[in-house]
């Protein structure tokens, strides 16, 4: 049993080390890619597949989140006669947590799965070895544009999710639940701060980076055959999902601490 435990620990430490090296290489290559205009067309292609094509699903996710929040919170708040303040609850929840997290999870499924499957198939059919054999760094050529596109566009997609989430909540509250529109907006505007919006979007950079790095890593290291690619996709999604939740927890603590330490000087700012 001790032997088994030791073997598992060595495996986990080894995998973590390999992932760390891969992530470092990917981000270093990404920084270099930014300085090479020759690589821009490849980045734009990835931005189109990763970003533009994800807009509809991300918007749908956002809309339903806003609508459900309105439906679920109405009864609770109406009991206390606070239904006009629903806007604060819905918009704060959408902008700070649910918009970023659910949009990122949607992306982990849509984009992460596709990245792992694409790179995994390239790996299995020796296309990645072919890139190396022709003297090109596959991390620079294949991974850097994907990570860059994901990192830059996730925050933008989160803005879309937020926007549609706000509208969804508004439509359900005002047209279905008959809440006064003026009151809804004025309470929302008073409750939601610039800080909420900024932190929600800032998280997007990290979520996007995590999704792309994990998915590309799994694709690069997938085992042979159809089963290998399938397993890699599953692992990539689970890995991305868990790291989104974990990063979200960490950043909520960090941003809260920052907010509290600047709270006293806020009127000056």
């Amino acid at each position, binding site marked *: 049993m001790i032997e088994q435990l030791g073997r598992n620990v060595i495996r986990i430490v080894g995998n973590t080390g390999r992932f760390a090296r891969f992530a470092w290489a990917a981000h270093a290559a990404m920084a270099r890619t930014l300085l090479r205009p020759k690589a821009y067309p490849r980045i734009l292609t990835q931005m189109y597949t990763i970003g533009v094509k994800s807009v509809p699903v991300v918007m749908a996710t956002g809309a339903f989140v806003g609508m459900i929040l309105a439906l679920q919170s109405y009864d609770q708040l109406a009991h206390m006669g606070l239904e006009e303040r629903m806007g604060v609850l819905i918009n704060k929840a959408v902008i700070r947590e649910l918009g970023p997290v659910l949009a990122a999870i949607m992306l982990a499924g849509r984009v992460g799965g596709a990245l792992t499957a694409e790179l995994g198939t*390239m790996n299995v*059919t*020796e*296309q990645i*070895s*072919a890139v*190396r*054999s*022709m*003297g*090109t*760094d596959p991390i620079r*050529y294949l991974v850097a544009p994907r990570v860059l596109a994901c990192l830059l566009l996730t925050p933008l997609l989160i803005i879309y999710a937020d926007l549609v989430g706000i509208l969804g909540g508004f439509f359900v509250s005002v047209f279905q639940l008959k809440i006064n529109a003026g009151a809804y907006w004025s309470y929302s505007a008073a409750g939601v701060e610039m800080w909420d919006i900024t932190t929600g979007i800032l998280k997007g950079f990290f979520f996007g980076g995590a999704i792309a790095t994990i998915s590309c890593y799994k694709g690069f290291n997938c085992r042979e055959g159809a089963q290998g690619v399938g397993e890699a996709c599953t692992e990539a999604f689970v890995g991305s999902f868990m790291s989104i939740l974990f990063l979200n927890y960490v950043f909520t603590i960090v941003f809260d601490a920052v907010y509290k330490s600047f709270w006293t000087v806020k009127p000056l700012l």
Partner: protein
Amino acid sequence: MARKSVQPQDGILVTRHLTKQYNGGVVLDNISLAIEEGKTTVIIGPSGCGKTVFMKHLIALERPTAGKVFFQGKRIDDLDEQRLAEIRTKYGFCFQMSALFDSLTVYENITFPARQHYRITDDKALDKMVKQKLALVGMDGFQNYYPASLSGGQKKRIALARAIALNPEIILYDEPTTGLDPITSDVINELVNKLKEEMNATSVVVTHDMKSAYKVGDRIIMLHNGRIIADGDADYIRNHPHDVVQQFIHGRVGEAELAALRLGGTRFETQFTPKDFR
């Protein structure tokens, strides 16, 4: 028949005491070999004997567990990927499954190495280069096709054209005829010979197709269980006294394998009919 005294200057590509292990299993066992410039060296051996792994060490796609690899007298197995990139432009590698980029057209596949390593200002020159390389493999006119719409033999030829795009000094072929019909296989063999003559390149061919080995090889090396067991020209291999060599070149199954097959059970014991499960 291992040559213990191989020196880095003995050939364009030299391995010294090359050993590779995966999870404790030995795949290559102390291989010392010098590949001569301008000649075609064929490496034969049964599936899983380490031929492809050996070939990948020659271009440092795999790193040895022990031993050294030299290219033009300089050690390459300990270089980082960036330093290797420059050296690899002198290589052409033709993969077993062609490994063409399926998201790119034939034209883009062939211009890939040139675009990666040089600042291309004259697209006309590039067009001309692609046309010339495709003509060399008899595939001119296929520039705008995607690999998915080509047959196995056509893909192989495009992979060849891509491998020679930068006029390499050494071309490595990983099982170039595997999975092709006999006539297409022969076309590929002819191409290997033609490329050697026209480009004056050194070739290393990994194969288990003896017809191909005799046709293209100036020198044939047989690997078995990670070791070199025969090394010489076609006649030498044909008359080699070693049983394993004779079995392999004549495609004959050994007594031990036959005995194992006989032990596998009789027809009646192994055959089930649906009524057995009722």
